[in-house]
């Protein structure tokens, strides 16, 4: 079970969180009204499935109920950083790692 550092509460067990897919997928300001069907479908449905370091969101559902961002290696489950929603991912030396499928 992962131990995830909530930037608001501190380290908490994974069971307090709900996992929420890829981070930094901002909703278009227009609500997509100026986008083609293809562009919109891409935004709604398509997410990365990185084998390596992945930026993802977690909701601290059984805690402060806030959404946080997390930088996690999906192969080793190493968590390189967590940071608040709206913040940019911190620069970390070997955060670019990606593995071959």
């Amino acid at each position, binding site marked *: 079970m992962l131990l995830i550092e909530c930037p608001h509460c501190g380290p908490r067990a994974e069971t307090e969180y709900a996992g929420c897919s890829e981070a930094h997928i901002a909703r278009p300001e227009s609500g997509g009204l100026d986008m083609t069907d293809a562009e919109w479908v891409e935004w709604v449905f398509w997410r990365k499935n990185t084998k390596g370091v992945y930026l993802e969101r977690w909701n601290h559902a059984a805690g402060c109920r806030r959404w946080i961002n997390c930088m996690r290696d999906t192969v080793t489950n190493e*968590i390189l950083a967590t940071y608040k929603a709206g913040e940019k991912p911190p620069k970390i030396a070997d955060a670019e790692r990606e593995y071959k499928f």
Partner: protein
Amino acid sequence: MSQKFRLESGGLINRDKPVTFSFNGHELKGYDGDTLASALIANGVHLVGRSFKYHRPRGIMSAGPEEANALLQLGEGAYTEPNARATMEELFDGLVATTSNAFPTVKYDIGEVNSLFSKIFVSGFYYKTFMWPSKAWKFYEHFIRKAAGIGKAPEEHDPDFYDKTNAFCDVLVVGGGPAGLSAALSAAATGAHVTLVDDQPRFGGSLMAQSGQEIDGKPALEWVDEAEAKLHDLDNVQVLRRATAFAYYDHNYVGIWERLTDHLPVKPEGLPRHRVHMMRAKQVIIASGAIERPLVFCDNDRPGIMLASACRTYVNRFGAKPGNKGVIFTNNDSAYATVLDLIDAGIEIKAVVDVRKDPLGPLMEKADAAGVKILTNSAVVGTSGRLHLKSVEVAELSDDGETAKSDVTEIACDFLGSSGGWNPTVHLHCQAGGKLDFDEERGAFVPAPSNRTNPNISVGSCKGAFGLADCLAQGFEAGQEAAKAAGIKFRKSGKAPTAEAVDEGNRRLLWLVPGKKPLGQSGKHFIDLQNDSTAADLQLALREGYRSIEHVKRYTTTGMATDQGKTANVNALAIVAQTLNEAIPTVGTTTYRPPYVPVTFGAIAGRDIDDLLDPARTTPMHSWHVNAGAEFEDVGQWKRAWYFPQPGEDMHAAVNREVAAMRNSVGILDATTLGKIDVKGKDAAEFLNRVYTNAWTKLGIGKCRYGLMLGEDGMVMDDGVTSRIAEDHFLMTTTTGNAAPVLGHLEDYLQTEWTDLEVYLTSVTEQWATASIAGPNARALLSELTDDIDLSNEALPFMAWTPGTVAGIPARVFRISFTGDLSYEIAVPADYGLALWQALMTAGSKYDITPYGTETMHVLRAEKGFIIVGQDTDGSITPVDLNMNWIVSKKKGDFIGKRSLDREDMSDPNRKQLVGILTDDPKEVLPEGAQLVEVVKDKPPMDMVGWVSSSYWSPNCDRSIAMALVHGGLKKMGQKLYSPQADGRVIECTITDTVFYDKEGNRQNG
């Protein structure tokens, strides 16, 4: 027969405390400090069970958790436990053990007939044989399961209780042998919080099985006792005995299974049987030792054939003789320690059969000097003895070791100890994602440095350091290193304990010992005793094209079940590598998975059983419903009254009565469970505009509006009525089961997308209790209980709400309706819920007020064609599909789901659409979920055009009614559809609109 195989002295047993136990109905004696296995051996009992597939007689083969044969049924009645490893069960007065897999007795087992057909019971036998005809599997399965079952599960409720605890420490040390103790001492000396766990009742690990070892100049076990006393006195150290670290999960989360009462003849009250410690450790030191590897030779499974180290353990730790005259079969020097100790104990060693051509090693030299007969470059090529080993056949090996010479010598003996070297116990390291390196010299996989996710250090023999001096030194160093890594400031912590370094000698890795005939032609080379899988099975799997070791493992079931790589896997993959002519590391290992040993379900569940597993949510009126005899249904975690049967009524009769009563006079429903979210802030209206499909800014204070909530994909996600409390304040309701997801959905947008909006959300579901009264007499009833609310149609019209007092209770009265009748939902602070309900029931008695449950509510709403999200929608249904275009604002700019509704696919006229369905026979009620077709064929498959989502008998319409999602259904009004049933009948029906009752809506508006 009384402990004929007990040595006169020696062993860590308490001879002053004799213990009586029973095995297969025979009363036997042992001593306190025995395991069940050691007591059986002291009584000369080796035959303990029958093998899984061939029902071959099997005996105790080990002295530890790796035991594959002695899996016994313990205890009786509700306390019975299957598949207990006799080697791990401490003996106590009154222990009852029986053989599991034999009928009628372990000596005469009918299943042994399987051995005669062993040629056909090869790997994949079941898959190959029982595939055809596919329907007959159900018939075969009954007999196969019965034949293969090893233990019996208890049939009664478990009378014991179990605990689970969350725990934390700086340094967790797994294993209380020399390496683990050394590590715990050095880590503890730094001031770190240390937890030391060991699966045995006492510390010492392998030292308990050895003789003559010294640490720091003292007898080793004396050093162990001092170390234990020292750790015991330290406040920063927690010591757990009879505790197995069984699982290593991510971020150093280790499951520890502690057994508190299993070894006690009388179980103390109030003490849990087992306790699982879920330990989050900053650093882990793994000192889990090594397990001896058996040699794979022909007919290596007879009772009396054991691991060499097990023979030594029984003699040194338990004072029990594995037999009177033995043969030791080895490929390395360590087995000679067993030889020397057994000779010391007065046991005759007929010969040591050593596969090495030129054996080297200090222990071998000692044995040689003591005059032990050593047969070099030789192998055991066969064994005999049906229920117990009688003799072994020995032959010289060819140069390459692949065949044995034909000149065979028979040696009479009653036990054989075999040693093929040692497998470091790398299970936890691997569960933690650690990689393995292959030690070519020792033929062993050893841990590589751990990954960063799960920082741990392996020390001692689980790291491949088999000498005592190395174990102590590595443990000491790791203790310091781990404490430092855990952030403990370095303090001087003394010196490492020392012991004499010993030369390990040489080895000859002979993975598959040849027999007299080629493999598979005579006798069996067992690899996994528990699963009865043999070297021939592995080779067959390879011949059939299996290559991945993971596939070979599954196909042959090698190393499955409780073995988990303890004795079988390295032999198996070495033989696979040899057959494929590949290097062992190239073949690779299979995955080590938790648990390391079988853990009881009770321990895993802990207190999370019955009501505590899934807590029930009940409304303030729940006790009333119970007293009224209501049947309940689960909606999420809520217990909702389902229907209120009167004496003699079934659900159908009760619902018919409730439905009619509501339409004729007045009914009352507990609507407390609906999700309620308080929406506050200056941008609340704008926020609702964005999350619902319709417009909210112009909704007046005191007014209510129905809303549909979509996901970004345009699909219906939830619905409910929202009321405006003030300019900046709304109360939203959600469906009962969706309250939490909806709140999450809304929070997500507020926190991450529309951070400029000033809106605050609070869940108030549990703060309000709601009674809904509906029917033509609802207004008359309510007027009797309030004098400050004007209930006239003008003052409180449909879709309006007002604060006021009902039955003396401050209340919010909403004139909203899910029944299509005149209806008021009265919400009061939750504590007043029962009082409100009782007041309504009392005042309503003159109107024959009828409480109704969710089933009646479903019928009533279906009569009006109101949807239930999740029943009439399935995550692929848009408002347009529901024929609810009216609720989708065309004027508003953006809202969640809007863009998706404009996608080309969404306007496909052939999408599934919600329509009403009337059966041609009005008495026929379609089953919900029934498929609908336009053309009936003789048999499936037929082209399905939709399915029934809601279907009921409607007393008010005096006929059945249904709703269905049908391709292009809205354009097919009046068209015939057919619903073929499982029993072959075809129900004919017609597409209609979804409103079946009071189409003009006069009843709810009046």
